[in-house]
């Protein structure tokens, strides 16, 4: 990696993290370049969501460091951490909308909490953000009245409400029909240019993600397997990456979650009992 200093917004170094005995990251290095769209891809359960939560400082790594704009996220007092978070927007995998607030109020929430803007301006900003994700008409609805895909778009509007420096998208394309998928992909790209954002997209929708990103990482088994421009990733020499890109069931990745005993042994046990 040649990128240094100013070009890198988030710098992950030798990150180690485990849930109890189960290691999720086993020493990974990731650089998120400033102003670019970076994809982080990997099979389900590798810890992509976990990585975003670590970057946001919700969880603490056992070793290694994560710097956001030169500041070590995990060495900050709570107040400083909160200041950092105002500059990160995060789109949760399930939207995480506040269910007792309307769509409008959900998008207005971070503005009301942090911006101190007068009501009329808040209204304008919220309507602008909702218009951008195509849901201005749904402003008065409540989260239980909209679909999962719509909820994720509302969450996107909310994530960009404070005009953060970086937005982290956790599986933004899941549950989107082809039209809103296309709109969303373009939107992520446009927002990135127009607002001068840095975007991190976590996804396993390989083609979609590669087509809009400038740089990509493939993570699996607690390691970074490959990284590079989308073209470089597409022509990766790694057997794993090829399997992942092409979606083949056979190869170095196993579809099965790691089991203690063989399938036959498990079944025989049942027969014996």
């Amino acid at each position, binding site marked *: 990696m040649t990128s240094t200093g100013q070009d890198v917004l988030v710098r992950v170094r030798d990150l180690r993290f485990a849930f109890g005995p189960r290691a999720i990251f086993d020493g990974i290095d990731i650089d998120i370049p400033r102003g670019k769209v970076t994809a982080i891809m990997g099979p389900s359960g590798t810890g992509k969501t976990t990585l975003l939560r670590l970057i*946001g400082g919700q969880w603490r790594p056992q070793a290694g460091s994560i710097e956001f704009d030169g500041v070590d996220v995990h060495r900050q007092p709570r107040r400083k951490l909160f200041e950092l978070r105002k500059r990160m927007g995060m789109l*949760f995998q399930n939207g995480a909308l506040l269910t007792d607030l309307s769509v409008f109020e959900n998008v207005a929430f971070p503005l009301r909490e942090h911006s101190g803007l007068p009501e009329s301006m808040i209204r304008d900003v919220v309507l602008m953000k909702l218009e951008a994700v195509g849901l201005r008409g749904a402003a008065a609805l409540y989260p239980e009245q909209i679909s999962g895909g719509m909820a994720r778009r509302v969450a996107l509007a909310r994530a960009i409400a404070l005009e953060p420096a970086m937005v982290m998208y956790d599986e933004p394309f899941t549950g989107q029909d082809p039209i809103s998928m296309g709109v969303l992909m373009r939107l992520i790209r446009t927002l990135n240019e127009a607002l001068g954002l840095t975007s991190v997209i976590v996804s396993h929708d390989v083609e979609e993600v590669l087509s809009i990103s400038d740089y990509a990482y493939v993570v699996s088994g607690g390691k970074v397997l490959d990284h590079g421009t989308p073209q470089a990733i597409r022509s990766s020499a790694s057997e794993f990456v090829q399997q992942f890109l092409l979606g083949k069931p056979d190869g170095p990745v196993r579809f099965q979650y790691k089991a203690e005993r063989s399938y036959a042994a498990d079944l025989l046990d049942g027969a014996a009992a």
Partner: protein
Amino acid sequence: MKALRIVTDFLRGIGEATFFLLAIVAALPAALLRPRLVVQQLYMIGVLSLIIIVISGSFIGMVLALQGYRTLADFGAVSSLGVVVAFGVVRELGPVVTALLFAGRAGSALAAEIGLMKATDQLSGMEMMAVDPIQRVVAPRFLAGFIAMPLLASIFSLMAIGVAGGHLIGVSLLGVDEGAYWSQIHEKLHPHDIVESLIKSLVFGAAVNWIALYQGYHAAPTSEGVSRATTSTVVVSSLVVLALDFVLTSFMFR
């Protein structure tokens, strides 16, 4: 070995709950600065508990009047019926029964609400928006419950003594002299009885709220976790209220 685990788990729970309470208390000033959030919760926690409190208060008052009348009649002292009802309700049943009902009505709802918010990532979503959930969600609810409990207990006591409770049975039905009913209460019920009653309900309210919010906030993020948090809220807070009542009463008993 297993007993040791249970003991250490219990102690860890107590420690966690204490830290949680300290965090709430630290967030209270900020919650006071946003009275709208507290008022909203006062409605959810207090106003929506009113019906059950009013009805229960009336019935308890009627029962106390019936029971008291029979005993007093033997001594020819039925004119003291008002005091008997008032003492029972103000000193004991008002705070205790209100707290038990409050745990069942408001406490369980609080635990389920917070637990579900946690299970659906709403709390961590807030954290990622640099909003402290303890300050934004937990503290206003705690404060609202703390304010609501003494008010609810007072309403309970008034209902029990008044025209829909003890008064209805004693004066309207059994023919106790109305003037005697009220004047005896006025004469015998001292301000310190009322103060002690308020202290009790403040303590019970804080305890029930603390338990409910803790259970919700530390619930496992699953449907089973939320249901367990709701159940433990009702069970634990009922026991704690009864135990605290014994402790407080023995201090106040003279």
